[in-house]
């Protein structure tokens, strides 16, 4: 068993841009691989979370019941949970639907939209599809979140400095340039 601290990541209702930004740390990814062991993450396709994950990085907010399930699972297994990016911290672009009722959104998407071709006239309702929530929730409105890294996406340097500070037991004092909302 590896003694390196475990890091897990997931993308909920996001666009994978924040994961792209994580990969954007370039050759420092080798240093990161020395520092940590990657657990469940879309990067390595591990499906099940270990019990002793130190840092969980969450991209995206919660738009459906599966997102909530995954987020709660991360909270249960990760010592420190970080909301990464605008969608995780505030709902982001998917939350544009929040002022509109879910029924209206689905009818626009599957029945009434100007480019819709749907001869069945039905809104998808397969039991295998996760049910949509009434609105998109930022992660900290669903579980306790320990740190927020805003940005769309947060710059690679922001993610790198935050991770290395946490893993090195140092305070997360990020410079002005690295905390931006866009």
């Amino acid at each position, binding site marked *: 068993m590896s003694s390196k601290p475990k890091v897990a990541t997931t993308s909920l209702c996001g666009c994978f841009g924040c994961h792209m930004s994580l990969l954007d740390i370039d050759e420092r990814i080798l240093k990161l691989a020395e520092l940590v062991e990657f657990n469940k993450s879309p990067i390595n396709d591990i499906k099940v979370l270990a019990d002793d994950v130190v840092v969980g990085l969450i991209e995206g907010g919660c738009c459906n019941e599966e997102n909530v399930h995954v987020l709660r699972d991360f909270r249960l297994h990760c010592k420190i949970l970080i909301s990464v990016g605008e969608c995780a911290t*505030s709902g*982001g*672009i998917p939350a*544009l639907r929040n002022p509109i009722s879910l029924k209206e959104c689905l009818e626009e998407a599957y029945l009434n939209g100007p480019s819709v071709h749907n001869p069945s006239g039905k809104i998808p309702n397969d039991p295998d599809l996760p049910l949509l929530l009434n*609105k998109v929730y930022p992660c900290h409105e669903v579980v306790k979140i320990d740190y*927020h890294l*805003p940005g769309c996406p947060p710059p690679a340097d922001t993610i790198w400095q935050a991770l290395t500070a946490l893993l090195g037991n140092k305070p997360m004092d990020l410079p*002005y340039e690295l905390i931006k909302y*866009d």
Partner: protein
Amino acid sequence: MTDATFSIVIDDQEISARPGQTILQAADDAGLYIPRLCAHKDLVPHGSCRVCTVKVNGRPQSACTQPAAAGQVIESETDEIRGVRRAIVDMLFVEGNHLCPFCEKSGDCELQAVAYRLGIAAPKYPFLFPKREVDASHPKIMIDHNRCVLCGRCVRASRDLDGKHVFDFVGRGIDKKVAVNSAAKLADTNIDISDKAVDVCPVGAILRKRVGYVVPVGERTYDHDPIGSKIEAARER
């Protein structure tokens, strides 16, 4: 009335003030930045956003409306006052729909810049996600009420500087909003692209059309220097 200057103390620093100055103006002149949103150097003080709240001899006051007076002892950058300001800005964020990633004003937005300066990574209150209107009827100007923080700068600028009264407040409490002086839309008012009211908006609520995103990321007003840096630089000289 005398023109003689007098002293006030802000966070243990003695600064001089002139009769007729507000605490905010005296602090600006001394190179001490007090965060603010509704205050604007060309407009009469409004005292509505409360971001410039300071404690004057132990009592909370808005620095933009409170006249400076001899012997005042003022607290500004204390943990308590920073907490108050943070709570106010948090509430402004959750009360509207402030989606910085695609907003044209991002990087030049005073609400965003004050939030950066206060160290806000995410608001501590639940988001309300209100349903608000966008009025893009005018050929050159648009209003996105999702981003409005009800600072009243446009109301004051149109009334006092442009002499037009294009904007005013309607409704109360959570239903309060900026309305235009016409039965229908912005296009039906006598607003003009050269009006001061178009430029004073601290957020992306009133925008000029077709000039969005012209300044690249990295070169915008608050990309490198926090809001208030210019005022503070005056002190260091």
